């Protein structure tokens, strides 16, 4: 107690009671209110990249990543069995595009596009996402090939669209020029044509990525390991369409 303060006994009893009652009311009020889980319908229209840049006040790298965390909270929980299945993918792609434009060197938007948002059971929505990944790949092939490599696998095993998978594989081979692009990625076409199921293919790609040192982030490693476990648990053995 400092010399500027009087003893606690100096506070009238009714003020003690009022303080305790107000605190209890606050706890009760907050405890009975529903949580702030965001649904698919809550996803607002995407801002433009210029608006995001203006709102970032010169911190595009931080705001791009925070925007991704904001975006991934939509339709993640709630009454849906599969996360993100009810999202408006046109709106979602607009958001992802704005975030990529805000910080083109961040891998988060394309990681989420390829690994998370392509898990949707609706083939039309998956195609929207694959098309977005392909468009973004064309802007910077040497740094974005691995997302298109995964998109090729999704096209083959989920959409059973071999021509689309081969188009993506050919694009990686044709457009990447950096020395650190591994050989297996350049030869994706052969890999796509091989008679592998999704689990085998995912294991080969993941092994290649780990070997090349492209995946270092602990959160991403955890996510990919979990994804492989899920595929194994699902017993994925998708019939591979022959050309």
């Amino acid at each position, binding site marked *: 107690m400092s010399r500027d303060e009087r003893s606690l006994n100096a506070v009238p009893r009714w003020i003690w009671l009022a303080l305790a009652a107000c605190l209890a009311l606050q706890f009760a009020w907050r405890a009975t209110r529903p949580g702030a889980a965001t649904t698919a319908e809550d996803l607002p229209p995407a801002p433009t990249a210029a608006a995001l840049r203006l709102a970032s006040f010169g911190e595009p790298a931080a705001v791009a990543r925070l925007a991704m965390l904001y975006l*991934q909270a939509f339709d993640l929980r709630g009454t849906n069995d599969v996360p993100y299945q009810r999202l408006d993918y046109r709106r979602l792609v607009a958001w992802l595009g704005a975030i990529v434009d805000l910080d083109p060197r961040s891998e988060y938007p394309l990681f989420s596009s390829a690994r998370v948002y392509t898990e949707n059971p609706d083939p039309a929505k998956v195609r929207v996402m694959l098309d977005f990944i392909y468009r973004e790949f064309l802007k910077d092939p040497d740094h974005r090939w691995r997302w298109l490599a995964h998109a090729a696998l999704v096209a083959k095993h989920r959409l059973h669209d071999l021509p689309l998978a081969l188009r993506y594989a050919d694009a990686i081979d044709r457009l990447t020029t950096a020395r650190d692009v591994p050989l297996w990625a350049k030869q994706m076409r052969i890999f796509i044509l091989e008679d592998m199921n999704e689990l085998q293919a995912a294991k080969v790609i993941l092994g290649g990525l780990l070997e090349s040192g492209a995946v270092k982030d602990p*959160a991403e490693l955890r996510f990919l390991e979990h994804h492989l476990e899920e595929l194994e648990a699902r017993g994925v053995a998708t019939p591979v369409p022959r050309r």
Partner: protein
Amino acid sequence: MPAAAILARFVLLEARRSGLPWIVAASLVAALGLAAFLAQVALTESIALQAAFCAALLRACAVFLVAAHVAASTLREIDDKGLELMLTLPVSRTAHYLGRLGGYIALGAVIALCFALPLLLWSPPAAVALWALSLAAETALVAAAALFFSMVLVQPVSAVAASAGLYILARAMGAIQSIAASPLAEPTLAHRLARWSIDAVALLLPRLDAATRTDWLIYGTPSGASYAAALIGLLLYALLLVAAGLFDFHRRNL
């Protein structure tokens, strides 16, 4: 010891005895705690996310703490007639102003160093060192702005608001200019006038969006030329604020 150095020492002593060290510690704990939480929900780039979030938050905290402290300290001295008492001493007005500012700049440098240290958890030392030096220069500019506005406006809310307004506008001006220069905009006379007005306002502001960039911590150190340009820009603007502050202080009838 010169009078200016003694004044600077007293400014630092005042900051140490105020609650500022505790607020700096609380800012560090809050930034690290929030960054750790965000890393738990991130699917990828968790390390980059922690570095970027912590750097952005601590940069804002450093600037706010310096501006608020400078305004509160200066205005308290004016209200308590301490400034008038100091002016009766055989110390020139220039030495008095520069001494106080020197203390605030040193305070900003200490805060910048404290806020840079945790970033070593995620970023290479060279990048952190460049970031810290740039933040120290940025807080020096903010201290000069807050001291100028405090002496001119003589109201705490007005001084902090003016400093914050200058800072936020300077950080957003690059984005505002790029929006104004958008090729999608109609090339009307009104648009051209608006664009010229924005460019004119930009001439009066420092390029704060080019300084203390989070990119340096995540994607690697900047080129020597761009880093030097950013720091020289800050230094020139700080000198402009000091000159303006000295002009006003010498003109004032105290």
